[in-house]
């Protein structure tokens, strides 16, 4: 792989060194480079328009002060890092950040444990049961997120939801229990939903990894007297560790940005300020209170965390495929 220091946005054409040399080989190379960049132009243009421009706008806006006057067209004054300082000292921001991180880590951890167990189960059962499991996982995975949310709100409906019915039948008093009224059970419901949606991807990925573990190795270990647990810990888990690592990283990145689930549960009448995570908080700041400066500052914060977390994933992907 060629090591390259040119930034993505500088067409190599502009490089003076290449223009000065005239060797035919160089010229051929230059033409190739030019062709390649021409092929990239459409993608770059659309990315610059839909992501690049908003990103720059957002960074600038996060350093301005937005108030009522700006809504009537007055230019926003530049305040430097004041918004960020305000964020850092705002206890509510820390509540939201803490809540988001806690929710993200807990959800990702449970998803991983259930996903790994599910993959092991798929490996352990016979073909028929495996297909049944896989079809069920695929159906759950395929559900559009908004449709999944309407079903889950129906399942957890306080009046006629199946969950309350079942718990009441089991002898607990859940008759008319409203899960979404209390922030703690609100997040418990959100967690169950997110885990339900995320486990299939984890299970299938890890199952794919498990099928790469050679049977001979496992048989050899068994003949040497390794118990099932020892084989799992000593052979299987180390061999699928790279998959587990990358899937877990993706889960953390994805769970940090849960928006649709929280927003749609909030729609059912929960108090937003008690149930906001980062995504819904930005949404509320931007569309509810039109405080674009603060919304931008929180957004930039979220982007920085995401990029930091993604770095390892991106490096891993580059290593194998670029």
């Amino acid at each position, binding site marked *: 792989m060629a090591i390259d220091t040119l*930034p993505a946005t500088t067409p190599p054409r502009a490089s003076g060194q290449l223009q000065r040399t005239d060797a035919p080989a160089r010229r051929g190379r230059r033409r190739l480079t030019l062709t390649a960049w021409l092929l990239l132009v459409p993608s770059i243009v659309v*990315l610059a328009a839909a992501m690049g421009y908003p990103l720059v706008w957002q960074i600038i806006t996060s350093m301005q002060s937005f108030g009522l006057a700006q809504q009537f067209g007055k230019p926003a004054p530049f305040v430097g890092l004041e918004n960020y300082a305000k964020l850092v000292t705002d206890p509510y921001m820390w509540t939201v950040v803490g809540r988001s991180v806690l929710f993200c880590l807990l959800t990702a951890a449970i998803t991983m444990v259930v996903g790994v167990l599910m993959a092991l189960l798929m490996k352990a059962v016979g073909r028929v049961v495996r297909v049944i499991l896989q079809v069920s996982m695929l159906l759950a995975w395929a559900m559009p997120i908004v449709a999944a949310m309407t079903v889950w709100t129906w399942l957890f409906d306080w009046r006629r939801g199946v969950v309350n019915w079942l718990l009441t039948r089991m002898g607990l008093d859940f008759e008319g229990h409203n899960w979404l009224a209390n922030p703690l059970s609100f997040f418990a419901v959100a967690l169950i939903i997110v885990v339900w949606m995320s486990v299939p991807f984890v299970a299938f990925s890890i199952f794919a990894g498990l099928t790469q573990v050679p049977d001979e190795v496992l048989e050899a270990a068994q003949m040497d007297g390794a118990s099932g647990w020892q084989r799992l810990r000593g052979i299987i888990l180390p061999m699928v560790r790279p998959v587990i690592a990358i899937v877990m990283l993706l889960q953390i990145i994805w769970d940090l940005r849960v928006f649709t689930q929280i927003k749609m549960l909030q729609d059912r009448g929960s108090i937003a300020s008690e149930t906001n995570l980062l995504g819904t908080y930005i949404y509320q700041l931007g569309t509810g209170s039109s405080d674009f400066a603060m919304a931008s500052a929180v957004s930039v914060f979220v982007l920085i965390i995401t990029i930091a977390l993604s770095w390892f994933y991106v490096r891993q992907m580059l290593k194998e495929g670029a």
Partner: protein
Amino acid sequence: MPARTRRTLLGVLGVVVALIWVFPVYWMVNSSMLPNAQLQLLTPTFLPFGGSFDNFTQVFAGGTFLPALGMSVTVALITVVVCLLFAFLAALAISRFRFRGRTAFVLAILLVQMLPAEGLFIAQYKMMAGLGLLNTVIGVSVIYIASVVPFTIWMLRGFVAGIPADLEEAAMVDGLSRTQAFMRITFPLLAPGLVASGVYAFLQAWNEFTVALVLLPDNASATLPLWLRGFIQASASKAIDWGQVMAASTLVAVPVIIFFLFVQGRMTSGLVSGAVKG
């Protein structure tokens, strides 16, 4: 424990887990066929005996489904077509050429692909509002194309790289021009990749909620996810007709489930290919 008993127990466990996992999907379809009066009984009805498609008829009669369907189909088709075209050209560049800036570009698309919609949607809202593109197909499509194109490039890159350049060169030795060689040799081999990436792009655009919520505030321009959300919202004041909501959800979910089963294998391997190969 004898191996046979163990196997049977694991099999039973597997089936039970499968049933639990699929239950919400089943419950959606089941409820969609039951009249609301029956759904309001104290004891749930677990099988749709005596059910009907009345809920679906009512959803259609509401008159809002078809416009939302039209909006969703338009946006999804534009996203798929434009995205495939752009991503195909880019995938060609990064898998067929070794050029300066290539690694930087790949790095950039991998990073952009990870950016959360919530990290940019307020800025995108302001931009589209400034351009007068709120509530328009163009506005939301541009954002969708940009958010789907990076992963599509990544997916297609694998397919293009999987077709040996030698094939093309052999055809060129036999007298075809570079373009002809590409169109006759590489392109047909690439078709499955294009279909898989196209379905992926379609699903993303079809299911997307966050950006649509911000860029399409007007009910008249709602896509299906927004329309579906409106169902539980609109009826917030009165009791919700869950039968209708579930019928509406089924209508939104069924095409997705069909397409998804089709493309699933490719998506998993695209996301974790390096790790699985290990």
